[in-house]
C-alpha cells in the first residue's frame, strides 16, 4: 500500500490534494550521485515489508492525532534505483500551510528513523555497502 517497486508518480500524488485544503506540501527524496564524499551509481532499497506497512500506518495515525486537519500520504519505493530516481514521496495537505509543512517534515523525519527500510549504496569503484546512519552520526 505504501511500498512499491514501481517508479513514484509524485505528480499523481500532488493531484490528489483535496479542494478544501489551502496548503499542499510535498517532499520527494531523490537518489543522489554521492554520499559523504563517495560517488554513487545507485541504491538498492530493501524493506521488512509487512512491518514497514504497519509502521507507516502507525506513523500516519500519530500524525492524525497531532494534526487532525492534515491528510498525509507516504509512498516509498523498493528495489534498485538509479541516480535521480525518487525513493520516497510524502504529501501533506492542510487548510493552512504551517500545518502542511510541519506534518510533511515530521512524516519524513520519523519515516527515516522508525520504518524498517534499508539501503545499499553502490559506488563508482564497484563496491557497495549498507548505509548505517548510526555510524554516520558518530563521525
Amino acid at each position: 500500500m505504501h511500498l512499491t517497486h514501481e517508479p513514484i508518480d509524485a505528480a499523481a500524488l500532488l493531484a490528489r490534494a483535496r479542494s478544501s485544503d489551502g496548503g499542499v506540501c510535498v517532499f520527494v527524496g531523490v537518489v543522489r550521485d554521492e554520499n559523504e564524499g563517495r560517488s554513487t551509481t545507485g541504491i538498492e532499497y530493501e524493506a521488512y515489508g509487512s512491518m514497514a506497512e504497519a509502521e507507516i500506518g502507525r506513523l500516519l495515525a500519530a500524525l492524525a492525532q497531532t494534526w487532525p486537519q492534515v491528510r498525509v500520504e507516504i509512498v516509498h519505493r523498493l528495489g534498485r534505483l538509479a541516480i535521480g530516481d525518487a525513493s520516497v514521496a510524502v504529501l501533506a495537505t492542510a487548510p493552512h500551510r504551517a500545518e502542511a509543512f510541519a506534518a510533511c517534515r515530521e512524516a519524513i523525519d520519523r519515516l527515516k528513523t522508525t520504518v524498517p527500510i534499508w539501503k545499499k549504496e553502490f559506488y563508482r569503484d564497484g563496491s557497495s555497502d549498507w548505509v548505517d546512519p548510526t555510524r554516520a552520526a558518530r563521525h
Partner: protein
Amino acid sequence: MTVKVLYFASFREKTGRDEERRQVADGARVGDVWAALVREVPHFAAFLKMPPAAVNLEYAGPDRLLREGDELAFLPPVAGG
C-alpha cells in the same frame, strides 16, 4: 516452542539466511534469542548491545516474552528515504 526469526539487509548477508525457525525454551524472551545469536554468529558477537527488534511487526524490547509462532526480527539501523 518455535519462533520464526527474520534477517534483513546486512544481517541477511552476514548470516546467509533471510528466515529460520528456532526452538526456544518456554518463557524465553527476545533478549535470550539475541544472546544465543551472539554465541552462534561471529558478526553479532561484536555488538555491544542488542539491535532494535520487532515481534509480530512491532518494535519490542529485550524483555518481551515470546510465544509459540511469534515472528521475531533483529533490525539493522534503518535508513529509508
